[in-house]
């Protein structure tokens, strides 16, 4: 077996499995061993499901021997611990769900299972996906594989670190304000947040329902196309799932970019952007010009209001969604409750961490009598303004390209004392969530040894175009093939 099996792309793994070059059991064991060897340093996983994984891999090998199975039969995967997985602990990074064993599979999990994947375990994450550094997890922070003193980003920090260190060839993730793209950027991997409604939210523990979207973290855009093709699609169990055919995202890769119009937002190249990060972005834009794309500078005047609008809308929806954790039907219950009110208050007070409580209270306040119009309704109107800005921009250009984050990864503990400093990490990513747009982050170089992410945003349901734009850049560059030395 090749020593660099863990460095192969998804397409290469699928081909190798089908050619019987290696078995799913061998592949699964390789990644399980890599996870276990890294766990004390990176803490990328909350649960490792070795027994179930090996059983699933044996079944995959039988399918492969009989030339049965799906597009991804035998390929190992890590699921973010926000996705319900039947019979397996689903904690959402919280003490509240530390004892929760899901009775069913989330739709993205079920669809990928039907495609033949083998689950390795559940990736660590910020508690209830609320965080940008993976430091709010009840199970401790994930560490960045490029430098373990630094954060991996969040909330899908475990998924991003796992793929960056090649502990898994691919991972599921979710993005409410940047939770796929920001950790992908900070860990040097490819993150895809699809259009709102493209992938079902059924069984994905809800944070902010009008913003949450499931997507992928992979090494390459081509890998992301392979996974999205299986994950996407209509689901009657999600009332906001969109009934629209799923295009063949793999088949459309490779179309030339000549004539592609790329918009550069003035608001994305502001004073907050680290000059060295900006250089990497400009270098990537030069690659696109060489491929025949045209650059056009433009402005979205309402975009600077996206972080404040988000920090009204998201906490409001969070306070409502997290009301279900009441200590009665599932999840943490306090000891010896005096009465029902005491049961609610202590179960929730003990079960939720500091940041989750902060967001529940912010949401409760902005929705409370007398403040609803001033905060919530105002934010929903600003959200409309931001969305209209994007709609106007996509009348003139095909995609918007800019930075994913203002800086590279920062030190663990550096931003935990001031929530607003932490919130501003997502300044370039939140706009796409407010407008429901698909967006990606791909690696575009390094600053002081740390990866820099390039963000590509497109109109609704333009995933095929985004994946192609990312893929053609990855054909010209090799940033996406870099792996931290220790995990090479």
């Amino acid at each position: 077996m090749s020593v660099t099996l863990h460095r192969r792309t998804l397409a290469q793994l699928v081909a190798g499995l089908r050619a019987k070059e290696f078995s799913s059991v061998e592949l699964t064991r390789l990644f399980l061993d890599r996870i276990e060897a890294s766990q004390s340093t990176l803490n990328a996983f909350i649960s490792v499901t070795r027994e179930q994984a090996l059983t699933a891999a044996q079944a995959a090998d039988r399918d492969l021997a009989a030339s049965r199975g799906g597009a991804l039969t035998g390929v190992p995967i890590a699921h973010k611990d926000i996705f319900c997985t039947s019979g397996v602990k689903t904690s959402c990074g919280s003490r509240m769900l530390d004892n929760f064993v899901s009775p069913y599979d989330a739709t993205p999990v079920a669809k990928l299972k039907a495609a033949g994947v083998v689950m390795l375990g559940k990736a660590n994450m910020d508690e209830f996906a609320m965080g940008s550094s993976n430091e709010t997890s009840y199970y401790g922070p994930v560490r960045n594989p490029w430098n373990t003193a630094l954060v991996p980003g969040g909330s899908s920090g475990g998924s991003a670190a796992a793929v960056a260190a090649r502990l898994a060839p691919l991972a599921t993730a979710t993005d409410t304000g940047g939770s796929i793209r920001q950790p992908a950027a900070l860990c040097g991997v490819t993150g895809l947040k699809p259009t709102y409604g493209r992938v079902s939210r059924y069984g994905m523990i809800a944070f902010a329902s009008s913003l949450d979207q499931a997507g992928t973290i992979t090494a390459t855009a081509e890998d992301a196309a392979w996974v999205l093709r299986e994950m996407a699609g209509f689901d009657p169990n999600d009332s906001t799932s969109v009934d629209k055919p799923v295009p063949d995202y793999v088949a459309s890769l490779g179309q030339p970019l000549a004539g592609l119009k790329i918009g550069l937002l003035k608001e994305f190249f502001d004073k907050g952007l680290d000059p060295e990060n900006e250089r990497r972005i400009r270098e990537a834009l030069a690659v696109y010009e060489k491929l025949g794309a045209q650059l056009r500078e433009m402005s979205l005047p309402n975009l600077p209001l996206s972080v404040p609008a988000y920090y009204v809308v998201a906490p409001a929806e969070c306070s409502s969604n997290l009301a279900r954790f009441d200590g009665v039907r599932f999840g943490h219950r306090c000891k010896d409750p005096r009465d029902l009110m005491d049961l609610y208050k202590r179960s929730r007070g003990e079960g939720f961490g500091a940041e989750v409580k902060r967001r529940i209270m912010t949401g409760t306040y902005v929705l409370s009598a007398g403040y609803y119009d001033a905060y919530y309704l105002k934010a929903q109107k600003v959200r409309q303004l931001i969305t209209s800005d994007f709609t106007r921009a996509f009348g003139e250009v095909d995609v918007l390209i800019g930075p994913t984050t203002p800086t590279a990864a920062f030190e663990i503990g550096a931003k935990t004392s001031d929530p607003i400093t932490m919130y501003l990490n997502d300044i370039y990513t939140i706009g796409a969530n407010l407008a429901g747009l698909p967006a990606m982050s791909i690696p575009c170089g390094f600053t002081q040894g740390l990866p820099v992410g390039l963000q590509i945003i497109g109109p609704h349901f333009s995933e095929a175009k985004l994946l192609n734009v990312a893929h053609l850049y990855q054909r010209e560059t090799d940033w996406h093939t870099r792996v931290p030395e220790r995990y090479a």
Partner: protein
Amino acid sequence: MALTREQIENIAHLARLELQPAEVPVYQTSLSAILDFVGELDRADTASVAPMAHPLPGLSQRLRPDAVTEQDHHELFQENAPQVAAGLYLVPKVIE
């Protein structure tokens, strides 16, 4: 905007969260700062703007036919419950 101790305690009550005494001043500071920060929204002129209720324009919530599609799984679901008896979820006595 500075929130008082009483306001934080009232919000926590509405949210059904018990706070430790030491947590109250922490949330006083951070929630006040967050409200100042989101106060930037006042800069936007939204007089003629309709609030956005759904991220995809023109789509509304779907309804399904009123037909039984699920089996009864209450025993499976109650495996996660802290306290159950005779198929019922138990809570402290609410009626004297």
